C-alpha cells in the first residue's frame, strides 16, 4: 500500500470546560496525498477547525487529543515531543488563519515577522532571511516587496495581510498548507485573488492543501476531495463531484438544497429545520438525527458507520446502510454469488448466516 502524506485515523479531540467535557472531534479519519486539495466543510461547531488545530497540535490549553493518530509520512506525530512538533510546524505543515489582522503581530514589521519564520527553521543569517522574505512577498504577488517589508500590518489592506500570512506559511516550503477559513474576512473580489494565488502556488510548489471553510462555493472552486462534518463527526467524504452531484448523507443534501445558486433564484429555499447541534448535549445516535427529515429509530440509538456508497465516496448514514443491505439480500435472492454481493455492497454472510459488513473489499 502506498504511503499517504498525511493520514488521520479515528482522531478524537475534546475540551475540558466548566460545563463538562466537550467532544469537539469524534473519530475523524482521512488521508491526504501530495498535491491534493482537501476541503473540510461544516457549520460553526462542527469541529472542522479543531481537526486542523489537532493536526498542528495548537489546541487551546483545555483541549487535548484523546484518541486516534495523525500520521505524517508514516510516523505518528501525536506521540512526538514538543521539540519535534516545533520542527513539524512551519517546515512540514503550516497554517493560515481566518483573520489576518489578529494573526499578525501589530508591533513588528512585516519583514521582521517573515524573517523570524525563516530563521527559526533554516540557518540563514539576517541578510539572507531578508532577501528570502522579499522573494516570498514577490511570490505571493505583493507589489513593491522591498518597501513592504518595512511596513507594519496596519498599513496593509486585508487582502495584502492575507498574502503576507501565506508568504509566512510558505517560508519553509511545507508539504501541507492548512487554510482555516482563509477568505472569510475578505471581499469577494479579494477572495478571488487569494484563491487564485493559492491554486497557482499549489501547482508551482506541489504542496497539499487542507481547506477548512463553511463556504460551499469556495470548496467547489478549490477542492479535489471534500469532507463534510457535523457535530464533530464525518458525515460524508468523497470527490468534489460525488459530494455535489450525488450527495449520500441527508445533511449534505440539506446543505446543498438550502444555499441559493444561479439556478434556483426564483424557487423557495429548503432550509434545514432546527438549530445547530450543542456539543455538550450530543445524542447517542447520529449527530444530525434531530434535524433529519428521514430519521429512523435506529438513528436515535446508534451512531451510523461509514459505508462505501460509490467510487471514492463514503457516507455515515443509516439509510445507506439499509439500502446496501437490501441490495445484498435482493442479489442473494436473485442467485448472485457471495463474492459478487460482497464486491457490490460490502455485505456478506458469515458461517452462521448473519450479515457482516467488510469495508475493505469494496474499497478495492
Amino acid at each position, binding site marked *: 500500500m502506498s504511503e499517504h502524506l498525511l493520514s488521520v485515523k479515528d482522531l478524537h479531540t475534546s475540551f475540558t470546560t466548566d460545563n463538562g467535557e466537550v467532544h469537539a472531534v469524534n473519530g475523524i479519519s482521512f488521508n491526504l496525498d501530495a498535491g491534493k486539495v482537501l476541503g473540510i466543510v461544516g457549520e460553526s461547531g462542527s469541529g472542522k477547525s479543531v481537526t486542523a488545530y489537532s493536526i498542528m497540535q495548537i489546541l487551546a490549553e483545555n483541549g487535548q487529543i484523546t484518541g486516534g493518530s495523525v500520521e505524517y509520512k508514516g510516523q505518528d506525530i501525536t506521540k512526538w515531543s514538543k521539540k519535534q512538533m516545533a520542527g513539524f510546524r512551519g517546515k512540514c505543515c503550516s497554517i493560515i488563519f481566518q483573520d489576518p489582522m489578529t494573526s499578525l503581530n501589530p508591533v513588528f514589521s512585516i519583514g521582521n515577522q517573515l524573517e523570524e519564520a525563516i530563521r527559526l527553521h533554516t540557518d540563514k543569517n539576517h541578510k539572507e532571511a531578508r532577501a528570502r522574505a522579499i522573494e516570498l512577498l514577490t511570490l505571493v504577488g505583493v507589489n513593491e516587496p522591498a518597501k513592504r517589508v518595512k511596513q507594519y500590518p496596519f498599513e496593509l489592506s486585508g487582502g*495584502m495581510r492575507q498574502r503576507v500570512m501565506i508568504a509566512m506559511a510558505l517560508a519553509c516550503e511545507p508539504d501541507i498548507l492548512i487554510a482555516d477559513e482563509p477568505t472569510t474576512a475578505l*471581499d469577494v473580489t479579494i477572495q478571488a485573488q487569494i484563491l487564485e494565488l493559492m491554486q497557482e502556488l499549489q501547482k508551482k510548489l506541489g504542496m497539499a492543501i487542507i481547506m477548512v471553510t463553511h463556504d460551499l*462555493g469556495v*470548496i467547489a472552486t478549490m477542492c479535489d476531495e471534500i469532507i463534510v462534518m457535523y457535530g464533530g463527526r464525518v458525515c460524508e467524504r468523497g470527490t468534489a463531484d460525488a459530494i455535489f452531484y450525488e450527495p449520500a448523507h441527508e445533511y449534505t443534501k440539506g446543505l446543498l438544497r438550502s444555499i441559493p445558486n444561479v439556478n434556483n433564484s426564483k424557487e423557495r429555499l429548503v432550509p434545514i*429545520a432546527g438549530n445547530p447541534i450543542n456539543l455538550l448535549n450530543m445524542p447517542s445516535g447520529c449527530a444530525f438525527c434531530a434535524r433529519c427529515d428521514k430519521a429512523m429509530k435506529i438513528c436515535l440509538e446508534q451512531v451510523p458507520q461509514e459505508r462505501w456508497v460509490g467510487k471514492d465516496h463514503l457516507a455515515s448514514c443509516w439509510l445507506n446502510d439499509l439500502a446496501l443491505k437490501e441490495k445484498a439480500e435482493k442479489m442473494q435472492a436473485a442467485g448472485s454469488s457471495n463474492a459478487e454481493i460482497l464486491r457490490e455492497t460490502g455485505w456478506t454472510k458469515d458461517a452462521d448466516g448473519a450479515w457482516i459488513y467488510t469495508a475493505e473489499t469494496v474499497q478495492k
Partner: protein
Amino acid sequence: MSNEYLIEVEHLKQYFPVRTGFAKTTPLKAVDDISFAIKPGETLGLVGESGCGKTTVGRTLLQLYKPTGGRVKYEGKTIFDAGDVPELDAEGKPIIGANGKPVLSKPVSVNMLPYRKKMQMVFQDPYSSLNPRMTVEDIIGEPLDVHKLYANKAERREKILRLMELVGLNAEHATRYAHEFSGGQRQRIGIARALAVDPRFIVCDEPVSALDVSIQAQVVNMFEDLQHKLGVAYLFIAHDLLVVNHISDRIAVMYLGKMMELADADDLMNSPIHPYTQSLLSAVPMPDPKIARQRKRIVLEGDVPSPLKAPSGCPFRTRCPYATEQCAAERPQLTDRGNGHMVACWNK
C-alpha cells in the same frame, strides 16, 4: 406627484469629516450622489464590497445620520431635503432661474417620529443589536411603547405574542433574554421588533451574514414570507451576491460611494454591463464544481482605493481594464440601457 414609488432617494450624499492633519479635516464621501426608488412590496438588493457605503445608504435613508445632501421622499412626500437638488420641470429638465443657474429645492427637515412607524431597520449582528438586559417581550414591545400602539397591558401582550408567532418564535420565549437564543432566533427577534410598528419599508442591513449556512435559508424564507403576507418593501443590503439575487427584484451595485449599475435581478446576474459588476459576479465562488472549473474569473488588480483619495471621474477607473482618458476627466452618470437597466460607464 405620482405615488408609484414608496421610497424615492435623489442625489443622496453623506460625507463624514475625517481628521487628516492638525486642524484639517477632509470629507470622506461615504455616499456620493446616489438616486434610486423602491416600489411598495418590492425588494431592492444593494451589493458592494466592504467600505463602498452600502450600509451608510441604509442608515442615511432612515436619517440615522443627517444626510449631507440630497432628498428623500416617502410616498411622494419629501421627508428630507438638504436644499441642493435641482428642481425639474415637467419634461425632467432642470429649471434654470433668472441668474442662469439651476433652481434648487428648498431645504426640508421633518420630525421623523411618525415616519419611524413606516420605516424600520434590521441590523447585521443579532448579538449586539439586542439589549442583553431586556426580555424578548420588552425588546419587541419597545417600539409599541414609543409609538403608544396599545390601549392596555393585555393588548400589548397580545400584539407581542402575535408578532412572535409571525416570525416563528414560541410564546414561552417571551420571558427569556437574548443570550438564551441562537443566532437565527435572535435575528427573528430583531425582525419581530422591526415589524412591531407595522412598517411599509424595512432596511435589512446584512441580516443573514452572521448566520450559519443552514440557518440562512430559514431567515431568507421568512423575509420572503413576510413580504407576501404584509406587503412590506425591503432595501436588502448584503455582500453575498447569491443571497441577494435570490431575494431581490432589482439589484443595485455600489463602488466607493457611487452607484455603478442598477437592474432587474436576473438581468444583472445574467448580463451585467458595467466592468465592475462583471468582475464582481465572476469572483463569486459558485457552489457547483463543474461551473467553478469552467468559469474564467475576471480577477481585478489591486485593492479598492481609500475613499479619502477616491480617483477623479469614474471611481473604478484605477482597476478597470477598459479605462480611458474620458473616465479620468468626467464622472459617468447612470443611464438607461433599456428595460430599466441603468449603468454608469463611458465605455460599455
